[in-house]
């Protein structure tokens, strides 16, 4: 089987990390990196890897569309909104790593197979990829009237695209807790922490629990899900056993008598930025997983 020819649009943190992950894939070929800044480090690294690197932007890609099958968008939400219709016209499948939310939201262990024919698949956000699986694991065994996540990343790992998309991050991640995670209501919070040395990516998931839940069943479902995510993001792990708190919680999904709190840590594979930047890894590893599934389905 010939490998799927992929272009990475965006030469920032995410695009560069993705470049290294694609180099290891048997099903995908990093055929080009497309940026807009000729001095960007990402483009220099792509060239050093023998990957075609251009600073001529998406226009270049569309001019050479017949040389590619698939495009990874690693820019920002509004750039993707402008690019997406042009990719589609050119017959390029788009895997969107911005929170633009144009195509269906995909989280590999939850709904990977559901949207393999879609022309545009959205990877939500790093926080979404880290937390939606946990919400889905809880929702699989008990109703979740409300789910909330707090995603904290080191300041140095959040590039300008991430910073300018903080609203889109919050909204798209909130939506994914409901649309993919299966909660009735969702809320996402994003925090940047400037501590030195940089902190590992941290995620906290709060799920309101409907009546009649079984602690062991919920905890087992979470543990199993962590194992599955860790199979493609090796640094993904529980920071502590799930914590069950019984109290009256007046959530937007109604009053509940219990919640489970799941503390997660994501250590990166250090393909591009050092291991603290687990937020890059979980995004790019998920994108590779989705693209490989698309390739296999062709």
């Amino acid at each position, binding site marked *: 089987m010939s490998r799927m020819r992929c272009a990475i649009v965006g030469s920032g943190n995410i695009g560069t990390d993705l470049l290294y992950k694609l180099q290891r894939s048997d099903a995908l070929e990093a055929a080009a990196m497309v940026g807009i800044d000729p001095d960007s480090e990402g483009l220099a690294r792509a060239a050093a890897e023998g990957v075609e690197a251009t600073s001529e932007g998406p226009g270049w890609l569309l001019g050479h569309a017949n040389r590619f099958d698939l495009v990874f968008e690693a820019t920002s939400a509004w750039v993707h909104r402008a690019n997406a219709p042009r990719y589609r016209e050119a017959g390029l499948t788009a895997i969107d790593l911005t929170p633009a939310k144009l195509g269906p939201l995909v989280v590999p262990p939850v709904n990977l197979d559901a949207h393999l024919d879609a022309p545009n698949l959205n990877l939500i956000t790093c926080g979404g990829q880290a937390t939606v699986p946990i919400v889905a694991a809880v929702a699989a065994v008990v109703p979740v009237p409300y789910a909330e996540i707090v995603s904290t990343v080191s300041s140095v790992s959040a590039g*300008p695209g991430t910073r300018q998309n903080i609203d889109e*991050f919050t909204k798209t991640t909130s939506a994914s807790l409901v649309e993919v995670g299966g909660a009735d209501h969702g809320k996402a919070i994003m925090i940047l922490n400037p501590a030195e040395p940089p902190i590992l990516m*941290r995620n906290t998931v*709060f799920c309101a629990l409907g009546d009649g839940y079984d602690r062991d069943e919920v905890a087992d479902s979470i543990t199993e899900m962590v194992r599955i995510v860790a199979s493609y993001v090796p640094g993904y792990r529980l920071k502590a056993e799930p914590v069950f*708190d019984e109290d009256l919680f*007046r*959530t937007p999904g109604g009053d509940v008598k219990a*919640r489970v*709190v799941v503390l997660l840590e994501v250590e990166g594979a250090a393909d591009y930025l050092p291991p603290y930047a687990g937020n890059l890894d979980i995004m790019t590893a998920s994108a590779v997983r989705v693209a490989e599934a698309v390739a296999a389905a062709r």
Partner: protein
Amino acid sequence: MTAAFRLTDSTLRDGSHAVAHQLTEDQVRRVVAGLDAAGVPVIEVTHGDGLGGSSFNYGFSHTNEMNLIRTAVEAAVDSKIAVLMLPGIGVKDDLRRVAGMGVRVARVATHCTEADISEQHIALAKELGMEAVGFLMMSHMIEPEALLHQARLMESYGADVVYTVDSAGAMTIDDARRRVAALKDGLSCQVGIHAHNNLSLAVANSLAALEEGVDQIDGCMTGLGAGAGNCPTEILVAACEKTGWETGIDPISLIEVADRAVRPIRPEQGVIDGDGLLLGYAGVYGSFLLHAKRAAERYGVPTRDILLELGERRVVGGQEDMIIDVAMELQRRAAAVQPAVA
């Protein structure tokens, strides 16, 4: 007479922390009416963690903040109503909504090193015709020059004023003075200070800021606010008058409002207990206090140890989830050293 500075009262926003976000419409109506009649120009009303703050992480609001804000706008005759918003917690739609409700001032807060996440929100506030305030939290953590660099970003996005915010109540008088002086020196827009009282210096820091030319000051009636509480508005006004700074507000009527409308909300406000002091001493975000006390109870570990460990880890505002993390870890450590004797 013109006032020497513009006063913003945050009893109904920062004070929300002190009552675990249980403020009611009735309380809002009475406090706003009192402050408005006393001549306080700006009154902030929001969940303690800003628009959208109602959550597991920060505590659910007793009353939807939109109802509280609407009540405040209706109760105010001359005072402008302000809101706080933290990018990452609240979203631009929240700002659009409150602008439509008659809110005139949007205060956009970020950690002191992360000003660039406020660009869209400050720009939107201006577009909506609101005053835009840049609010640099935990300002004690960086040097004045670095703070100025971040403040300049907010100014470049359109902020009408940039505040140095002592969220941990950790600043000494000299710390406050140097930060205000650096901002006054390097910015063309106005400069504000928001002080907390963990070291019992909130009023003193605000007065020192006035000597450095600060344009805007925050207070909370009776000090009602996160951690050990804020700069008490009525004390600030009284102290200003005695020092010779014109406020445009009658201290006697403000003292009456404090006693009648605010003191009953939390009679014990004003006591700086050991934990409150420790926040300022260790430089820990003030809003963590009640969450840490609750976690201490829930997981059976001392509040003091939780606060010190949070300081050690240099957690920033908004990371309330780390309190659970720290409490669990202390619980594990304690279990590990427990002697196995009956």
